[in-house]
């Protein structure tokens, strides 16, 4: 049981950072990025191709993560311009549909070019005992990276001027504009940051399980569930929800079965919306 819960925490941290990438973009511009998982997988494929071509792992990983960040930036500067020109429900709907389309494009291209490619990053070394459970090095390194990134994110949002500007746009776009924050610069940077987080998801996940070229949609769905349960727009909510759902997921997969597990996660998501649309830690607007 302890081992299952520990696995759940490892998975949950990955869920958490996946949800953060989605929740940030939604909180800022009202765009529900239904291509988030596909973007992450695109990063994984870049890394996989580069390492296959003989490049060193660290350099390939860095290039892959930056590539997803750039992809996010390009999407924001092109397609999302039309979305940000809309207001209210129109903006939400257009953003959602466009990103659904982008998700299909990325997924289709990957499936077409690299149908059986998968990224696995092996972390060498013997398993380490934690609380009597022997944990694989890959899981521990992945979790440590995510915790570090999480801490950096919190520091960024609390301590830097740009982080505070970001939070001001999340709270009130017009108010932020009045005090001299340029929402479009913030949005572009955060879309890029969300892409980078997606790349980190791909890398950390590849340390525990192979990331296949067709896994994008599944990752997007997990990101969506986590972001909704945590409260759309809430970074700490996404992390908390990620860890909770990760534990629920491994426990239920271990004791009940995988199809039911997915259904349980989806039902948790739907019930959250119906009972408490603001999620665990979100603020009701």
């Amino acid at each position, binding site marked *: 049981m302890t081992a299952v819960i520990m696995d759940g925490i490892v998975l949950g941290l990955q869920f958490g950072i996946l949800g953060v990438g989605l929740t940030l973009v939604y909180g800022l511009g009202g765009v529900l990025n239904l291509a988030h998982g596909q973007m992450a997988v695109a990063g994984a494929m870049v890394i996989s191709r580069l390492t296959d071509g003989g490049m060193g792992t660290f350099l390939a990983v860095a290039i892959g993560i930056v590539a997803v960040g750039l992809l996010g930036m390009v999407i924001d500067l092109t397609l999302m311009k039309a979305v940000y020109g809309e207001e209210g*429900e129109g903006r939400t709907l257009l953003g959602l549909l466009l990103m659904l389309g982008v998700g*299909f*494009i990325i997924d*289709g291209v990957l499936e077409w070019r690299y*149908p059986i490619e998968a990224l696995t990053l092996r972390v060498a070394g013997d398993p380490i005992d934690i609380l009597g459970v022997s944990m694989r090095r890959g899981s521990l390194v992945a979790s440590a990276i995510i915790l570090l990134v999480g801490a950096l994110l919190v520091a960024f949002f609390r301590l830097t001027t740009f982080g505070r500007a970001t939070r001001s746009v999340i709270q009130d776009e017009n108010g932020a504009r009045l005090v001299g924050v340029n929402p479009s610069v913030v949005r572009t940077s955060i879309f890029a940051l969300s892409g980078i987080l997606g790349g980190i998801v791909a890398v950390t996940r590849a340390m525990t399980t192979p990331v296949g070229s067709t896994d994008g949609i599944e990752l997007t769905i997990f990101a969506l569930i986590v972001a909704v349960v945590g409260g759309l727009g809430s970074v700490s909510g996404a992390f908390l929800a990620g860890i909770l759902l990760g534990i629920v997921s491994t426990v239920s997969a271990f004791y009940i079965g995988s*199809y*039911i597990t*997915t259904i349980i996660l*989806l039902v948790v998501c739907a019930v959250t919306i*119906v009972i408490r649309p603001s999620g665990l830690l979100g603020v009701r607007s």
Partner: protein
Amino acid sequence: MTAVDPAADPEPAADHRMAAAASVKNSILGDFLPITIVAGLLGLIPLKFMDSRSMMTVLISGMLFAAYGIAFNIIFGSTGQLFLCVGALAGIGGFSSAIMADRLSVPWVLSILLAGIIASLVGGLLSWIAVTRSLDTIFIGIVTLAFSLSFENFVLGKGDLTGGEDGLRVAASKGSIMREQVKPYYVFLALVVVYLIFYRLLQRSHIGWAFKALKDDEVAAELAGVDVTKYRVYAGLIGSGMLGIAGAMFAHQGRGFIGSTTYAFGAVDVRVLVMLAFGGIGSLLGPILGAIVFTVLDELLDSQAQLREVFYGIVTVFLFLAFRRGAIPSLSSLLKKKPSSRSR
């Protein structure tokens, strides 16, 4: 219930009413003429392709998607509820009809109607939850998407009932006209025509007025006494029932086979959305135009099956950016030389 029925408004000025009645009579021809013409043209298509089983399968699926499109148009186009569970509702119809007919020996024609009722109740429930919890578009979208994916996992996981990954072979309708090569096309065409007429009649009824009012301005409609909750749930019930019937009919046609992907989100919902984006959300013939165009394109892309997803993605992005109101409304407003009322 505080709903206002404009047609039954007790005291409008008498001559206004006469004028309105006259114009309604004049427009009946105008209203139903397009449906007649479209039905006639669609009825001619099999003459060219009746020898090819594969072409007939493609055409039947085209008609099925036209029916899905009309039903989705009632839910999303008329009342703005983003139901991302078109496939799931059709699948509830398809699987429950197949199971009722084969396991419980319900006559298969009856099972299609019962399946429609089941889908209608499920969709109505989703709609009722969405309205009473006043969920906005995005949350309705997420809840219904979660519902779709749960349904897919249920179909895969509950293999003893649904056949799981192998799919389900339906036996009850063997030997009926639904198993022939050309006739099922006409059955589905009839369904589409019935749906179109029903859609038109609905638009002209007090329900249609209420839909229009609450779509144009929900607050104003509510203030004018339109019971928004009631009409949204009506749309959910009606559209979902139509989806259930169409999905159930599909289970009995051709080889009588429904698989785990027949009603999957990626196979149905995305296509319906793109079709409607092309044809025009909320227009009468938009779903038909969309279904025809995408049936032809699918056939052209058949040799490049992997590229289909890319293509759908590009079309979605392009259509929603370029004609946000769909091709038919954009064209008809161009013809009328009205400036497009697209808001930026």
